[in-house]
């Protein structure tokens, strides 16, 4: 399966989805002009991965900021991961960033996937 590797910018997150090496990570800032268009390749990748996933999938979110439009797409990503057995969400937040911690907690209540919360 092909690796999805998008370099991060000021307004878009860095994304690495690599089945072979077991790396699944979205990090940085997410305020793309068109969130739906930006996240479509991610959703497509997950859809393909769901057909033949690894036994366990530790999906890392290490975001500094995301806007309202991105929050909807992040929920779409989480919903897509919901159907993949063995998935855990690793939700990272800066130790001073209570907002990001609470955002992760809110997300964890919207989907049925185990979340682990970690600071950096």
């Amino acid at each position, binding site marked *: 399966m092909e690796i999805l590797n998008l370099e991060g910018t000021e307004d878009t997150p860095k994304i690495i989805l690599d089945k072979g090496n077991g790396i699944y990570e979205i990090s940085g800032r997410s*305020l793309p002009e068109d969130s739906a268009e930006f996240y479509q390749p991610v959703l497509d990748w997950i859809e393909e991965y769901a057909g033949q996933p690894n036994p366990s999938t530790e999906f890392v979110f290490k*975001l500094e*900021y*995301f*806007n*309202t*439009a*991105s*929050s*909807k797409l992040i*929920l779409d990503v989480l919903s897509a991961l919901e159907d993949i057995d063995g998935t855990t969400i690793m939700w990272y937040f800066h130790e001073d960033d209570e*907002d*990001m911690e*609470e*955002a992760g907690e*809110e*997300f964890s*209540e*919207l989907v049925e996937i185990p979340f682990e919360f970690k600071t950096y």
Partner: protein
Amino acid sequence: MSEEILKALTQLFAIITKQDGGVTEKERLFVISFFKQELDQETVNEYLELYDKYSGFNTEKPESEKKPERKRKLTSVRDSVKTLALCKKINKTLTQNQKVVVLIKILELVGADKNFTPQRMEIIDCELFYL
């Protein structure tokens, strides 16, 4: 409307109006008139307290505690996800007609002071998708 939905709506109203400089007097008056249509006087006060708490009305920080203004105003990530959660809750419970009423009320609220800023509209866009 049930208590659960009114509380969800109160939080939605608060999240929208706290953006871009915070709630204005006209917006707050709109919220009060909405509560008066739905609730008795005693409960209006209870809900208004809730609205003021969530919207941060009258909780201006002293000058020394204010953070420097960012170049671009940003909605907090917590508010964004909270909006999704509230819309999902409302969506599950209300009929199509009630959802239309909710959306109209939200637009009327923002229109109360003609404060259609990009930040507020982004939240409403998100609500439009879920409701």
